[in-house]
């Protein structure tokens, strides 16, 4: 595989290979000299056309710990504000001899487009509402570390599904690894056309969070994305929390050791109560350190060797 644009680009075996490499990379975080020479001399550019804390810093540290030269370009400081097109922007950057391009863009399909324009290896760090493959990999990796094999495990994804690329990548990744997924959302945030897709892909949908929670082995809460919504999808934030939030009471419905995930950033009190976010079962911070290990593994697998 040359690029990582979607979870569909990797097979279940390749995913387990990435997980195995990530486990080794985890150890680097604990060393005194946090450096591996594997990507020495490679140049990686992080092009983020949307805000990000976790993903961008994660990719930056991952590249630097592998000894790559990493540059961050954000839309705000770039000539995109002067009206330069995405195509010109990436061609300009890649004309400088860049080996890897990590791209986050508000348009679905942007990463695929970019991969067709440039020679560099392209990694999708989130394209519109389409996919966020490294997030799905780190979520599945975190759950596998906690639960053992994901084969046959029941995982719930709850929240604003319509606008979530994390949901799409996660459904693909978790089902590929043999887990059973149930997605929960209010009717207004359940993507249209999900019926046939869920039948084909083998996951379930539900509008009833209280019905689903007691049965699951792990739960993933998705952020209610205020910045994407222009229509009124729910009457008020309070109504959303009452109907679909992981409140203190709903915490009691969960199995006691079922991990609680959240890709971040969290709206504490909206989709997830502070009690749940800080509970012993919460793996939110583990997801972050897993994210770093996974991204190191992905960069290593795509950039260290010769193209096969």
């Amino acid at each position, binding site marked *: 595989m040359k690029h990582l644009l979607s979870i569909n680009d990797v097979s279940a075996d390749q995913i387990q*290979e990435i997980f*195995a*490499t990530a*486990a*080794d990379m985890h*150890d680097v975080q604990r*060393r*005194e*000299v946090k*450096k*591996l*020479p*594997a990507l020495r001399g490679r140049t990686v550019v992080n092009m983020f056309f949307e805000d990000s804390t976790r993903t961008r810093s994660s990719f930056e540290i991952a590249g630097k710990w592998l000894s790559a030269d990493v540059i961050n370009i954000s839309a705000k400081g770039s000539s995109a504000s002067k009206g330069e097109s995405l195509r010109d922007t990436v061609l300009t950057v890649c004309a400088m001899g860049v080996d890897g391009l990590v791209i986050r863009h508000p348009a679905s399909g942007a990463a695929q487009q970019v991969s067709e324009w440039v020679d560099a290896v392209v990694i999708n760090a989130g394209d519109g509402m389409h996919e966020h493959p490294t997030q799905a990999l780190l979520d599945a990796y975190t759950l596998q570390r906690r639960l053992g094999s994901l084969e046959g495990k029941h995982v719930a994804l709850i929240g604003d599904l319509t606008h979530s690329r994390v949901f799409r990548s996660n459904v693909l990744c978790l089902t590929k690894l043999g887990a059973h997924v149930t997605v929960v959302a209010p009717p207004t945030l359940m993507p249209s056309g999900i019926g046939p897709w869920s039948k084909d892909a083998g996951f379930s949908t539900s509008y009833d969070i209280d019905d689903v929670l007691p049965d699951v082995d792990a739960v993933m809460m998705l952020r209610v994305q205020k910045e994407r919504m222009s229509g009124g999808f729910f009457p008020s934030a309070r109504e959303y929390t009452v109907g679909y939030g992981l409140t203190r009471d709903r915490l009691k419905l969960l199995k006691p050791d079922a991990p609680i995930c959240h890709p971040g950033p969290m709206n504490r009190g909206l989709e997830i109560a502070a009690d749940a976010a800080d509970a012993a079962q919460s793996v939110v911070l583990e997801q972050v350190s897993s994210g770093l290990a996974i991204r190191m593994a992905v960069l*290593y*697998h*795509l950039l*260290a*060797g*010769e*193209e*096969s």
Partner: protein
Amino acid sequence: MTNNQAGPRIVLDPGDIARALTRIAHEILERNKGATDLVLLGLHTRGVPLAHRIAERIQSVEGVAVAVGELDVTMYRDDLRKQPTRRAHKTAIPPGGIDDKIVVLVDDVLFSGRTIRAALDALADLGRPSAVRLAVLVDRGHRELPIRADHVGKNLPSARSERVSVRLAECDDSDEVTIS
């Protein structure tokens, strides 16, 4: 030694390998004047079971348990760019670390010396041993770098084109060193 015209020639049989490892264990103890501060690090893949076997022998001679670990040098190879990405293995440093210790690297075959150079680079990122020594089961010559082993099981002059294979019970079906 058996000559097999149809296939590879056996240069070390299980008995030879066992005796060589016993001698290597004694040499290590002799050079180090005991087992103090010794850390054996096996290089993946077959260096690891060899390191464990040497540690067992040291334990039975000196009565002390020696720290044993594993070192993966994949990320430090100088030919990383020239081959498809290799899967790395685990690096497990014993709890006492390697600072101020006598580290003995253990590998099955010493050939060009590039793996050992990579191992020295890997060690530099992990700590500062007071000394680093090298024990190998087979030294087949053809060094491309100024690297030498302190303890050698068997010196095996070979042609570059020949293939030296080490099989160990822990990874393969039996103990054997062949050349073909």
